[in-house]
């Protein structure tokens, strides 16, 4: 018998434009001891489905259908309250915001124990310590009284897991538990979840947008799109033999399945030179953060140069230093033999035109008050390259170039999707006809299918416009497909650099090796399972 049986679940949100269906007629079963993956892109209804199981939807949501837990119908607040924590528990995508900033780690874990099992403070504390150790928090005893903000993201997620598992629930719902984490940290958390499943038979539902993650630990998977389940089955079957067209699209868009887009150059000519660049910030407490330290790099004309690293590695700082958003505290950036830091007046304007950047967050990188066309046109007329009206016309051509329909010209960012926003951002960057384009994590906030399109677009533009591209990413698989040469950063320092193929084939440092190993890859995971 299945542990949970979801039958005809539907969720509708009230809105001023009438009800909006977020989940439509979703049915699936969860068997004891299995890990079920729920995969889909944004807006597919996967998270809403997951939250509906625990009644965690906002008030304006209407839930239809039945959810049976162990044969009991979880209808009504009381029935759901009875299983929360003790039978079913949940962990979330962003561990930082899911911990109360004003409560210590130990209390977070002890809290449910005291409520559900009526343990005394001391007992609960002792139990909490064991739990924290069981989720492999180093030096758990010392961290019992630490505050959430004192822990790293991965540690916070472990605390959240310990707290969710405190009362030994039989089912754990994991809603994108590793999305906000670095790959190496992600690997650790996934390993922990897998071990929990194996060692204590914990049933799990893992919601993710990443088929690579699903492939690593799930037994079965259901694929959702537009609020409906379009395909379900064993992971192996779905990956190797997808039935639905969309599933095929999804699988085809996995970075590992992307075509090789890199085109190493025959005779490289230097364009940029970073000489011993350092960026240090003083901290409030009087210390010094070495965001970037002693970096030497050269970037060749026309190449696509990848920079990889985890959060805090300094990769974005390097990019911002090149565009002169940050002034380096040491060393210098040389552009065609001139020191960028010394540029002023017309030279600086010329440099600004030559070097442009596309940013990570699709929505935050566009002024919410300006339309797509205005955004793209603004740099053209502000730089005096054309009149305002001519610039607006030119903006439409740029929209064509980034494959954005002209009908979107008058839309503001809020009315655009993430991918469309990134296209506007790329068009804006291209408006000044730059020679170097820095793409800082431009696809990391996008769905994989959209990521694939953006990468194709960038490849085309690179060829058409003879662009040099610096591609910054935490995703090694993408970099491997997209970049000619790669630099690996860690803790503000350049770890190693080299031609992409060489570096991936024979990484010279342990860190690079770990990175490569930790990167989730669907095909590799399947291969390992087989």
């Amino acid at each position, binding site marked *: 018998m299945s542990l949970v049986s979801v039958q005809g679940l539907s969720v509708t949100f009230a809105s001023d434009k009438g009800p909006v269906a977020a989940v439509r007629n979703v049915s699936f079963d969860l068997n004891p001891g299995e890990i079920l993956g729920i995969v889909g892109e944004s807006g597919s209804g996967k998270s809403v489905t997951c939250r509906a199981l625990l009644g965690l939807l*906002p008030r304006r949501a209407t839930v239809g259908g039945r959810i049976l837990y162990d044969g009991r119908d979880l209808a009504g607040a009381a029935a759901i309250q009875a299983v*929360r924590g003790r039978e079913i528990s949940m962990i*979330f995508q962003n561990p930082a915001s899911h*911990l109360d*900033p004003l409560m210590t780690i130990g209390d977070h874990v002890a809290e*449910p124990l005291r*409520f*559900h099992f009526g343990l005394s403070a001391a007992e609960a504390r002792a139990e909490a310590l064991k739990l924290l150790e069981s989720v492999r928090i180093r030096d758990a005893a010392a961290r019992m009284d630490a505050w959430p903000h004192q822990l790293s993201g991965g540690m916070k997620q472990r605390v959240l897991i310990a707290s969710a598992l405190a*009362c030994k629930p039989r089912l754990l719902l994991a809603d994108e538990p590793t999305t906000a984490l670095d790959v190496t940290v992600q690997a650790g958390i996934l390993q922990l979840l897998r071990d929990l499943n194996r060692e204590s038979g914990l049933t799990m539902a893992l919601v993710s947008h990443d088929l690579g993650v699903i492939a690593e630990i799930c037994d079965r998977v259901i694929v959702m799109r537009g609020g409906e389940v379009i395909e379900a089955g064993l992971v192996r079957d779905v990956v190797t033999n997808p039935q639905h067209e969309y599933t095929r699209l999804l699988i085809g868009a996995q970075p590992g399945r992307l075509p090789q887009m890199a085109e190493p150059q025959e005779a490289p000519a230097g364009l940029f030179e970073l000489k011993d660049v350092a960026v240090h910030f003083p901290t409030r407490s009087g210390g010094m953060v070495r965001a970037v330290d002693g970096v030497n790099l050269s970037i060749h004309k026309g190449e696509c140069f990848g920079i990889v690293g985890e959060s805090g590695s300094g990769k974005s700082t390097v990019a911002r230093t090149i565009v002169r958003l940050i002034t380096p505290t040491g060393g210098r950036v040389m552009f065609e033999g001139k020191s960028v830091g010394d540029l002023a007046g017309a030279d600086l304007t010329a440099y600004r035109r030559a070097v442009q950047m596309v940013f990570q967050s699709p929505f935050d990188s566009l002024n919410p008050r300006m339309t797509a066309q205005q955004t793209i046109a603004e740099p053209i007329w502000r730089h005096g390259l054309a009149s305002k009206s001519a610039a607006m016309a030119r903006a439409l051509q740029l929209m064509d170039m980034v494959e954005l329909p002209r009908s979107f010209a008058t839309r503001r960012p809020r009315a655009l999707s993430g991918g469309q926003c990134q296209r506007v951002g790329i068009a804006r960057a291209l408006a000044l006809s730059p020679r170097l384009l820095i793409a800082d994590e431009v696809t990391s906030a996008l769905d994989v299918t959209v990521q694939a399109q953006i990468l194709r677009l960038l490849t085309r533009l690179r060829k058409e416009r003879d662009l040099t591209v610096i591609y910054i990413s935490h995703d090694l698989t993408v970099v491997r497909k997209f970049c000619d040469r790669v630099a690996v950063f860690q803790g503000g320092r350049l770890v190693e650099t080299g031609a992409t193929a060489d570096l991936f084939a024979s990484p010279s440092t342990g860190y690079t090796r770990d990175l490569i190993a930790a990167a989730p890859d669907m095909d590799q995971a399947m291969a390992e399972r087989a």
Partner: protein
Amino acid sequence: MNSITFIGRRLLQIVPVLIGISLVSFFLIMMIPGDPVRIVLGPRATEAAVAAMRQEWGLDRPIWAQYLSYVGNTLTGDLGQSLKFRVPVLDLVLQYLPRTMFLVAYVLVLSLPATILMAVIAARNEGRWPDQLIRVISILGMTIPVFWLGVLFARYFGVKLGWFPVSGYGEGFVDHLHHLFLPAVSTSLWLAPLLTRNLRAALIEQTEADYVAASRAKGLPEGYIFRRHILRNSVLPTLNLLGVMIAFLIGGSVVVEIVYAVPGLGALMVGSVLGRDYFVIQGLTLVYAIATVAITLAIDIFTAAIDPRTSE
């Protein structure tokens, strides 16, 4: 950062502020038309008498010289004498400080529980009738002028029912409570709504916070989640507003002080401004500045005690 350097830095910050305040207040007050000597001596004094007193008090010297000697005296701890009353400024201030402090404390004792109660009821019933009712009461409380309410209160509770004195400060603690009840209530009637609106908004915002969902997922009861998580996290912004309001009350309770004839620092300040009693104004401004900084500091320390993030 440890608390001693924290406080030390704050005290260091106050120095330029104090200099600025003394400059602004000195020159601002000097710019107000109206001759303090004429006010003190009355309309019947002769020009010669006015000139004599100006000279006696050094008011005929260049304004910079006056400012410098003021600063010099202040640094040696001498706040000077009142032009009007011819008593030391410090004595005047110290005479009224306890009353004002008592009134402010009283107002807080009345307002804070009411604020928390109303905000919690409103937030937990967001959009439903208790919320709407509290909102209407809040708006009424915020918009009814204190001086009008004061008269009505005095006539009804003081004269008609005879429950409370309509004036004065009284002798002894219980008598203070008795005398200041109406002034404190009148003030609370606009303070509590202001804080309530703020706290209610914070509570509602925190209700939607992610950690609340996480707590629910753990099966914790709603009431507990509200008390232990939501309330605590909501208090911080209101605490800051409270600090601002306390600082405001110390000098801003003028109207209540006049309506209920309990002169405190506010009434003294208004009287001094109207009487151009330069040295009293200077002294009071200094006291206010220090009070403001002290309150901000207290709120910061309190915040740091609640919120571990701020102390690092």
